């Protein structure tokens, strides 16, 4: 993956597959602590402890079209390559969460990339799921919650309408630029 945002897109597909109705994504760019932390958690079906203990193994997958599952293992190795860390937790029937911490100024850290595009893509993937997206840059934070968007749109209009997705993407992009002081 050339961008961290692509890992996030990939990881959220797991939450969608797990039947989650709410997915929370937290991006924390803390330059002072030299850390970029990505947290994704859902209320999907979760994993049993046996599967969880082996989930970062690239040869562990639920898919049937091929024998490898690279999503989580690649995200983990991307974080560890920078000297960062990775953790994943899950409870059957409750949900799953994971956190990847990247060393911010490591030469091996991929750019965060286009998170606005990732968010519009995951919303499009399943417009019935609610997403809470929180992005912090040092002490500036912005939060985006699809439930608020639904309140404005009402029940007739799906979040998957192209005009709505476009608005969401531009909105998140602008907000990220605002908290980062225009420099991303």
């Amino acid at each position, binding site marked *: *993956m050339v961008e961290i945002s*692509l890992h996030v*897109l*990939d990881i959220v*597909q797991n939450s969608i*597959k797990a039947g989650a109705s709410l997915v929370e994504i937290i991006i924390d760019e803390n330059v002072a602590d030299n850390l970029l932390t990505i947290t994704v958690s859902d209320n999907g079906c979760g994993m049993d402890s046996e599967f969880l203990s082996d989930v970062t193994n690239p040869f562990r997958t639920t*898919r049937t*079209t*091929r024998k490898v*599952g*690279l*999503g989580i293992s*690649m995200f983990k190795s991307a974080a560890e390559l920078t000297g960062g860390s990775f953790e994943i937790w899950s409870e059957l029937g409750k949900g799953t969460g994971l956190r990847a911490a990247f060393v911010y100024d490591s030469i091996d850290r991929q750019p965060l990339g*286009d998170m606005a*595009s*990732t968010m*519009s*893509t995951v919303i*499009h*993937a399943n417009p019935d799921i609610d997403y809470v997206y929180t992005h912090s840059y040092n002490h500036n934070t912005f939060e985006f919650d699809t439930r*608020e*968007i639904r309140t*404005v*749109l*009402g029940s*007739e*209009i*799906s979040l*998957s*309408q*192209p*005009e*709505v*997705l*476009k*608005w969401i993407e*531009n*909105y998140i992009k*602008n907000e990220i630029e605002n908290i980062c002081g225009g420099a991303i």
Partner: protein
Amino acid sequence: MKSLAELEQIRKQTLAKVNLRKEDDDSIRVVVGMATCGIAAGARPVMKAIMDEIEKRNISNCYVTQTGCIGLCRLEPIVEVYLPGSEKITYVKMDADKAAKIVNETIVNGKVVNEYTIGAAKEN
């Protein structure tokens, strides 16, 4: 500055179009592979290009969905187009420019872009 007021405007404008965008038998369905393999190969900009083109051209008889791994990872990004009453068209090794072209050629004009199809890729 994009605001919620602007979203309210979009709601009003879209409301009129929504009824036209019913997912029925006459609609064209476009499916983009969005598993790890697809994403790593560039499926996100492909999806974005398709959505942008549909929005720009105000196409109402087409809906776009995502799927997981189709099992042909080496040919990703893959875009499948289902034209009503005809066989599925599988486009492989897509990028944003090719995706915009298939919206114009296949979705708008109903023509197959042979050079991007899986059949053409397999001959090479």
